């Protein structure tokens, strides 16, 4: 009886001792929600409200414009090239860094993260300095009639640069935490290198890989600054969706601008949903989803 009493008495006391009072809880929660509302929720809602301001028909009409279709096509093409390239690189880099010990490993890991530290504008500028008309290779390219800057190859290059680290930085900590025992066992049992990779490594990293690809794709489709520098903004030819949004917005064609923006917003929401789903699915066993510390994540 006395034990029971003690338990009943001590629990709320302990909770009160280290918890916040109800008033403090209400105020802090209110301020936090107001902040998130002002900075996250309202902008999100605004995109759809502005896009639908003149009705559903006007909204849908925005996508029938040939320039809009060209922009959507170019964005899909760019992501379709950049994501697989960085996927292959990410797997190769993670294999070398996570499964082997060698000198200079931490330097290499830092170098892989470099594109995240560079301003998007500079990410575009570097390719202009090399391939632009007055750039290093400019004269040679002009002679051979190859266009890189103000053309699709430049857009792809800039996108590959800004999305470079995504897959690698998801996979490196994940594969490091998984160790090499399983792969070694497969080899000892007589599996070939390729069989070991497809049967052991790939299944182990598939969720982390998917996670990296989702983030990489979101950035590839949404990149603005770097692509803006190399694109030349030629309608119907070198405009990706974000660049076309800018043009429409500057022409005060707000419905069409926000309609195009709503596509990217939906992509962002799908990305967040997929990301959260993967995180929740593996909340108990983080080693299968992602080894990245949440604090480490940067886009």
């Amino acid at each position, binding site marked *: 009886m006395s034990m029971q009493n003690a338990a009943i008495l001590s629990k709320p006391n302990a909770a009160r*001792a*280290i918890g916040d*009072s109800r008033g403090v809880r209400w105020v*802090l*929660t209110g*301020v*936090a*929600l107001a*902040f998130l509302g002002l900075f*996250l929720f*309202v*902008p*999100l809602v605004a995109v759809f409200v*502005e896009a639908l301001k003149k009705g559903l028909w006007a909204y849908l009409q925005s996508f029938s414009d040939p320039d809009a279709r060209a922009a959507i096509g170019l964005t899909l093409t760019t992501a379709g090239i950049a994501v697989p390239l960085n996927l292959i690189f990410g797997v*190769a880099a993670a294999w*070398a860094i996570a499964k*082997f010990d*060698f*000198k200079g490993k931490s330097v*290499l890991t*830092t*170098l892989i993260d470099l594109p995240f*530290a*560079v*301003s998007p*504008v*500079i990410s575009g*500028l*570097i*390719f*202009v*300095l*090399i391939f632009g008309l*007055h750039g290093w290779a400019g004269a040679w390219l002009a002679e051979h009639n190859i266009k890189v800057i103000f053309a699709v190859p430049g857009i792809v290059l800039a996108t590959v*640069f800004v999305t470079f680290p995504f897959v690698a930085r998801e996979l490196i900590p994940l594969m490091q935490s998984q160790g090499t025992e399983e792969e*070694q066992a497969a*080899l000892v049992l007589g599996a070939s*290198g390729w069989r070991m990779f497809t049967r052991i490594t790939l299944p182990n990293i598939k969720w982390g890989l998917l996670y990296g690809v989702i*983030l990489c794709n979101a950035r590839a*489709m*949404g990149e603005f*600054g770097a692509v*803006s520098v190399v694109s030349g903004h030629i309608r119907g030819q070198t405009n990706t969706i*974000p660049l076309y*949004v*800018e043009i429409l917005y500057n022409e005060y064609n*707000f419905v069409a*601008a*926000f309609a195009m*923006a709503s596509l*990217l917003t939906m992509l*962002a929401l799908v990305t*967040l*949903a997929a*990301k*959260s789903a993967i995180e929740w699915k593996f909340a108990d066993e983080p080693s299968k989803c992602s080894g990245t510390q949440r*604090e*480490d*994540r940067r*886009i």
Partner: protein
Amino acid sequence: MPTEACSTRFTRWDNSLEMNAQSYRLKQHSILPGFGLSLGYTMLYLGLIVLIPLAAVFVSAGSLTAERFWASISHPRVLASYRLSFGASFVAAMINVVFGLLVAWVLVRYRLAGKRFIDALIDLPFALPTAVAGIALTTIYAQTGWIGKWFSHAGIKVAFTPIGVIVALTFIGLPFVVRTVQPVLQDLSKEAEEAAASLGAGRFQTFRKVILPEIIPSLLTGFALAFARAIGEYGSVVFISGNMPMRTEITPLLIITKLEQYDYAGATAIAVVMLVTSFALLLAINVLQKRAARYQS
């Protein structure tokens, strides 16, 4: 094939060093295959996509005379852009430290309906393309916009002023502090707080003396990450800033302006200043993160 050349070079190096076992080794012995190939490909791809293009900025800047370089980076209009970029980034990062800590605290400590939804939404600035954020923020913070209206009643103009720049930079930096502080708050042991409370400390005193020292390293890291991101930010700012020379022109925009005037030298010189700043910040962040990790363990 550079890849193969690279990979055979590495394996041969590796094998020859394996023989005099105790001496310097490129890598520790392992039975796993593909080291040469994967490292070779990594180095090749890293070199072609990242290192050589980045080096281009420094090489191009190296061909400028010192006077020309100095004139480009110290022009009054450029100096004004540094002031705005660094000042607004600093203020935005500070706002994020305060409110990011608050949001992380509420998410970790309180029971809340729709917590998962809110938690997922925190990453929105990472996932939402910057141009979309830019036009959305401009529309709602303009004088006729949903929120800008209320500010203009109070006589404050947000869009097309430095305040607008701060709003955009606060938006894009928002997840950094929350995501660095959240895991630390989660792992914080309740015992120390209980001890402080049982020794008679008030709630605020406990926070200041027990909780705050534990989370300061992660707050600093979050601040540095948000600040570094804000310095280079372009897409979300150009719409809301109005881009008036000397007043609301950020440094990245100035690089684009110079490029559009085919002033490659001027653009390159400013880019060097920004790159050096970014790399210094990256270094500081790495040190901070290592310290924070050591502090926690």
